[in-house]
């Protein structure tokens, strides 16, 4: 038996989480270093997965399969395709930066307090989330996926509710109330989505007699498993609902602004750049593969919802006064693009959507983490409290600008490639929707540049005049992300090479071919 690389990639952060939590209360810094080391080790394993993965090989690689709960028909089945590999790499890449960025976020307020050990918990929970996210990217058993899809809510919930920004305009009590409100809202939205999915998971088992993704997909492809049209549609809706809450898609998105606003910047990045990707990833992997006909049936409605997400998210981002809320609404807009790319059912659209997941992860991380550094300096999230920061802290302002430009998909930076692919892919099949979606980009330019203008330019406000520039630790977080944004913007080929074959296979599952180009059709 070969080395179970996929299990190891998830097991390392899981064990690291336990170990970090077990570090004695006084050895706070040891816990941090341990968490960072574990996350770097996980990154190394993820790179090993990336290297061992052969883009032109069989569909699922590095597979592992063991009996688990035979009675439920559940097996411990792991396997990765190009899409999963890309997202595992993204997750493993971002976590060390998130940990480094949140280095002081969970330090106890009063020194010498032994009563409560938030620091160990903070980093242990992050690693736990990482383990579960990676497992849900790897699982090729529907039940196994469901378990981690649901279970990751619990550590996320404690991360949102238990740790917030230090300073708050209405005092600690109000902050605590709002935080727990945000955490509960996050949990309830996702739990309801998950439970509805549970009914669909059980229904799928009753219909298909198996939880194995590959088995069911094969049986569907060769016609040995027939689903009644209405059954397939109900099951599809059960799955899609859960993923649309997680992604989040309008009108199920309202938990995201609350959650991102109230949590610390690294946790906000964890939510939007890592955890939410499971939702869009699962649409590609499960909705399309298991229910191809229903996916086609639902496409028009989903595209319209995605379009609303794009425009609505962007419009609301323009109107925000709170920096983190602004990024949250921008993310909603971006998730609209991802979902649109997935359901446009073209190879450019889906490749674009997958790249978008990765690039959005990196660009949001860059923007949000710098925003977090900014907020921690001034102790306020309100845009109006800033002004002229670029004169005081030029490096901070510069990195913030690059993060912002990436968010608005400036050509030359990574998100441009993916947004362009999504739009092209959508346009070739649904021109009207593609055209309207383009307005999302215009609005993105508006909210990003206005944000930059109001906070960084203009006269220096008194409260920010003594603001220190980025420290070495903070620079170590931001610089690699920016390098990566530029690299993938100029040379996305390594990523597209991995992703494209998987996208082609997914498309062939739904029996879709790219529409022929107009010029050729006219001949």
């Amino acid at each position, binding site marked *: 038996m070969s080395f179970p690389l996929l299990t190891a990639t998830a097991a390392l952060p899981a064990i690291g989480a336990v170990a970090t939590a077990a570090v004695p209360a006084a050895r706070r810094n040891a816990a941090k270093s341990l968490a960072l080391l574990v996350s770097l080790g996980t990154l190394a394993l993820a790179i090993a997965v990336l290297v061992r993965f052969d883009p032109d090989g069989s569909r699922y690689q590095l597979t592992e399969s063991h009996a688990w709960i035979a009675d439920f028909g559940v097996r411990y089945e792991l396997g990765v395709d190009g899409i999963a590999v890309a997202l595992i790499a993204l997750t493993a890449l971002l976590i060390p930066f998130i940990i480094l960025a949140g280095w002081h976020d969970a330090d106890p307020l009063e020194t010498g307090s032994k009563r409560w050990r938030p620091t160990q918990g903070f980093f242990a929970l992050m690693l736990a989330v990482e383990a579960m996210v990676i497992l849900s990217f790897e699982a090729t058993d529907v039940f196994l996926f469901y378990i981690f899809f649901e279970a990751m809510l619990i550590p996320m919930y404690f991360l949102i509710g238990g740790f917030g920004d230090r300073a708050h305009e209405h005092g600690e009590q109000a902050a605590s109330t709002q935080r727990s409100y945000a955490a509960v809202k996050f949990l309830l939205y996702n739990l309801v989505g998950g*439970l509805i999915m549970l009914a669909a998971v059980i229904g799928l088992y009753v219909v298909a007699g198996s939880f194995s993704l590959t088995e069911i997909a094969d049986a569907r492809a060769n016609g040995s498993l027939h689903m009644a049209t209405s059954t397939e549609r109900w099951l599809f809706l059960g799955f899609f609902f859960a993923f649309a809450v997680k992604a989040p898609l309008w009108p199920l998105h309202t938990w995201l602004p609350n959650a991102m606003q109230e949590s610390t910047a690294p946790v906000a990045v964890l939510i939007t750049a890592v955890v939410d990707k499971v939702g869009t990833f699962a649409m590609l992997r499960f909705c399309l593969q298991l229910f191809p006909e229903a996916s086609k049936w639902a496409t028009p409605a989903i595209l319209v919802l995605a379009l609303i997400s794009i425009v609505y998210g962007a419009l609301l981002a323009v109107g925000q006064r709170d920096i983190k809320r602004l990024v949250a609404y921008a993310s909603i807009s971006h998730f609209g693009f991802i979902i649109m790319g997935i359901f446009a059912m073209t190879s450019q659209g889906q490749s674009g959507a997958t790249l978008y997941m990765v690039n959005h992860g990196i660009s949001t991380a860059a923007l949000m983490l710098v925003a977090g550094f900014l907020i921690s300096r001034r102790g306020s999230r309100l845009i109006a409290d800033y002004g002229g920061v670029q004169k005081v802290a030029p490096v901070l302002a510069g990195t913030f600008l690059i993060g912002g430009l990436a968010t608005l998909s400036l050509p030359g930076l990574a998100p441009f490639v993916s947004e362009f692919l999504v739009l092209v892919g959508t346009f070739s099949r649904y021109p009207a929707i593609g055209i309207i979606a383009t307005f999302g980009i215009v609005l993105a330019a508006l909210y990003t540049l206005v944000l930059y203008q109001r906070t960084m330019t203009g006269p220096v406000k008194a409260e920010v005049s003594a603001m220190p520039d980025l420290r070495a630790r903070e620079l170590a977080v931001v610089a690699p992300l920016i390098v990566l944004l530029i690299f993938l913007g100029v040379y996305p080929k390594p990523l597209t090479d991995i992703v494209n074959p998987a996208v082609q296979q997914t498309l062939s599952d739904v029996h879709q071919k790219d529409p022929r180009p107009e010029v050729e059709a006219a001949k």
Partner: protein
Amino acid sequence: MSASAVHSLWTTAAEPIAKIDAPKIEYGQLSPTLIVVGAAIVGVLVEAFVPRKHRYYAQLFVSVVALAAAFAAVVALAADGYGTTKARIAAMGAIAVDGPALFLQGTILLAALVGLFTFAERRLDPEAHGNRVDSFAAQAASVPGSDSEKAAVKAGFTTTEVFPLLLFAVAGMLVFPSANDLLTLFIALEVFSLPLYLLCALARRKRLMSQEAAVKYFLLGAFASAFTLFGIALLYGYAGSVSYGTISQVVDGTVKNVNPALADTMGNDALLLIGTALIVMGLLFKVGAVPFHMWTPDVYQGAPTPVTGFMAAATKVAAFGALLRILYVVLPGLRWDWRPVMWGVAVITMLGGAIVAITQTDIKRLLAYSSIAHAGFILAGVIATTPDGVSSVLFYLAAYSFVTIGAFAVVTLVRDAGGEATHLSKWAGLGRRSPLVAAVFAVFLLAFAGIPLTSGFAGKFAVFKAAAEGGAGPLVVVGVISSAIAAFFYIRVIVLMFFSEPKPEGPTVAVPSPLTMTAIGVGVAVTLVLGVAPQYFLDLANQAGVFVR
């Protein structure tokens, strides 16, 4: 003339009288019950003859040994194949020894053993006049607040009778799911109910509330028992027998020997339907299903918390066992009649329990309503009427009992000056004060909510899957909706514990003796093991899923 010749002058020899066979009792197969009953009687003797200061240890010893021995007997029987190939009906047709019976008996015994540890806990309450005290009244007969009560407290009396009472209740619970005729069923019902009524009244603190709970439980329970008895009479009229096997034959129309005295009424469907309804009503009362749930919150709240935990777990196991046997062995021929009714009961039980729980402000009442919702989930498995239905219910019951006992054991730890601090507002910030206790309670709450990787999820998945396969898909949808509602109030408690500011005058967490720690530890271990690696226990439940007829 010989004596016999004289005798024959005025008498004539009758036919030899048919011998009454001595009942044949399979002592070995009944040993689990017999051990517990015997130990309970020993406990009564201990109470009578052992000096007061030694009673606690003597009783504890007798009870632990009895429960452990009875469990060993169950395991031995199961290992001997009585759960599968050698399943049989023992004691002249009164008791079934089969898979479900042994599985449930094992579960009840283990739950009772763990529950016993919380009964025996004597370190939580502050010492009264230098004597260690437990959760039970110093002298049950003394009027609350009276001088005689104070005297009893001062003398350091403790109600060690709780141990034999517990054992009697356990004995009844062991018979209840294995009863194979309606009279045995009724006797078992009374044997386990009466000690429970008493135990509910024995709280050391808040005695009036405890007595009120006991009276409510007793009155409503008496009604339910009367209904059951009436139903038994009607079924006897219908079938001419109280034996499960015969009744099911009459229902199926394959009966051989018709009792001439009852030939007129036999096969009268009105008797069958009303009788069934009344018996099932009595059982639904015991499991706490809506609309027979009214007693649950009051009794759970008023009873001493260790009793609540034991009762919530073990009564449910026993009653669902009996319900399964009646529906699956006696009345499968009637399933087109009872299934729609049970659908309705399951739906309102799931939704009712979950919705009303949201408004609760007392942790014990909250857990009571949560137990109602769980009864609804289990009913969904009962309705499946498939072998999977049986085994999923068995598994759910096993998983649920340990979570319940563990959760109530944690409730006993959180205390303020007035004893247990059960009002939810007092639990605010518990996670900051005592992270470990709060984390353990959070694990139990997550299991109740059915979050993956806990036993609650595995159990819920098993019953919902069985229900869906048994054609009860809409019930599953109602089930997940109620789970979502239920999740809300479990989460609310977690929010309260971890994210609320601790109150300055908040409760403290008492440091328990190893007894309660064991109970909680077992609860956590079972919750996690059944959540992560349930296969072995599912196999066990599967093998045990066949009733003997």
